[in-house]
């Protein structure tokens, strides 16, 4: 009896807390379908009384959000190439012996400690020297490699039996064929988590595109939204529509894959 009551209380606390945590999302989505006057009316309406799509049309027809959307997708696509490099490096560190390996690996890990603010100015100057500022390459290149991902992938790769790789070599398979046909399929669990986190990271990238892109044609959704907030500060419903466009794809993706992420946390050793 006491047990049951306890469970009820805990569930109730979680429901109330979960509702409070979700309010910003409900409010964002509902407001994005209200005409501007209704969005800022006092007392506020909960459900849109005059349901409208005008803000979404406005975003894509007049405010270039289509371009920002495409740019964001390009960054997401190339981040997957970065993930491939990270995976190759993780494999290299886990399964090969070569001179200086430990030192190089420690160097890789050390780069995790460098805050974004420290590297942003020199990286900007370096890109400027390479004439890559205000280009898509300049936006993409610095973010391709993440030491933390290399580390996690290496941890996983060490659990793959060496015999498997050796016997493939004896059968005459070349190194990259071994990597693509044997190692990658075996690494699905860790790669699934990495793909999701890489997607979310690239989708949300803000600071770097903000710095490197001067040209509106290179803006990402985040940068476009921040710009919108600056220029149309009083147009709340429009801003909410922009925010919804940014947030909803991640929310939907996340509903489907959350179980892998939670599992991933339990297996990658952060305990």
């Amino acid at each position, binding site marked *: 009896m006491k047990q049951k009551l306890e469970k009820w209380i805990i569930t109730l606390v979680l429901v109330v807390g979960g509702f409070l945590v979700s309010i910003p999302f409900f*409010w964002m989505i509902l407001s994005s379908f209200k005409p501007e006057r209704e969005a800022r009316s006092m007392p506020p309406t909960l459900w849109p009384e005059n349901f409208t799509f005008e803000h979404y049309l406005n975003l894509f027809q007049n405010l270039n959000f289509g371009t920002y959307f495409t740019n964001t997708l390009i960054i997401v696509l190339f981040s997957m190439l970065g993930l491939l490099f990270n995976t190759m*490096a993780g494999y290299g560190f886990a399964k090969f012996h070569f001179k200086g390996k430990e030192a190089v690996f420690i160097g890789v890990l050390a780069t995790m400690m460098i805050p974004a603010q420290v590297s*942003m100015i020199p990286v*900007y100057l370096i890109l400027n020297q390479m004439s890559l500022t205000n280009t898509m390459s300049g936006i993409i290149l610095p973010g*391709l490699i993440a030491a933390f991902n290399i580390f996690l992938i290496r941890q996983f790769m060490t659990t793959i039996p060496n015999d498997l790789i050796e016997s493939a070599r004896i059968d005459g398979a070349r190194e990259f064929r071994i990597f693509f046909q044997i190692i990658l399929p075996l690494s699905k669990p860790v790669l699934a988590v990495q793909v999701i986190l890489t997607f979310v990271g690239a989708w949300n990238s803000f600071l770097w595109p903000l710095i490197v892109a001067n040209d509106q044609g290179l803006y990402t*959704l985040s940068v476009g939204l*921040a710009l919108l907030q600056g220029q149309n500060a009083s147009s709340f419903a429009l801003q909410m529509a922009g925010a919804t466009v940014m947030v909803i794809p991640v929310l939907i993706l996340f509903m489907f894959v959350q179980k892998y*992420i939670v599992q991933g946390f339990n297996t990658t050793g952060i305990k």
Partner: protein
Amino acid sequence: MNHRNAWTPWLFIGPAILLLLVFAILPIFVSLVISFTDIDLVGLGNWDAIEFIGLENFINLFQDPLFRQSLYNSLVYVVIGVPLVIICSFSIALLLNYATSKLFTIFRVVYYVPSVTNIVAIAVVWGFLYNQDVGLFNFVLDFFGVDPVPWLEHPFIAKLSLILLAVWKGLGINMLIYLAALQSIPNSYYEAANIDGANKLQKLRYITIPSLSYATFFVTVTTLIGWLQFFEEPFVMTGGGPLDGTMSMALFIYQEGFQYNEFGYAAAASLVLFILIIVVTMVQFTFNKSDKD
């Protein structure tokens, strides 16, 4: 292992190493060098215009009221924000760990979702909720007869408002870390405590919390580092105002570097932030060690 060619491993790690060298290692040295120069937009086009000025940037920084304000603000963010994140994410993890039913799995997603959503979008939405005249928060307060709160219009309250948003955003990931740690505590500890007749509070105090010391350490270090680099929230919601009350060190560096193009000065500020992060992390590691002894 016997691969045939000494170059094979480098084919695998090469691309990553090359990119890290150019975009992570080299920048540290560039940053160090330019922080002792007066490089600005002119110097960027013409290297002859750059002058070596020694420690002048660093001396100027500590005399710059805006930089000192940003240091103070960052301190407030850390001192209030970090304990809040730890306490809240720990409490939620404890509640979520109570049962394993489908319902509890759904709640796990609900509490995690804010941490994967775009921070700019979130900042825009919260800016709307915080609006003094038409925001939802003041409407709800008004309903309960509370006077409107100047959420983003008062220098100190604005700091608290940004902290509240960042705590909301930071809950999910830390809650997951705590949850993973909670699930790895052996059940036998609790069974033994039951036999000894320990009550719930005693079990929490003597088994759960000590078993989570590593998770707490991890959460503290990452949250501290994250809060020292606080950027998007003040950038989007307040631009550092009102009266520089929300100006963070990261925002200061961004503005000096990319709005005023004072690259040398901004690089010096970024190195101060870097040193601060290293010191804070080292202190954490030392504390963690003495805990164990």
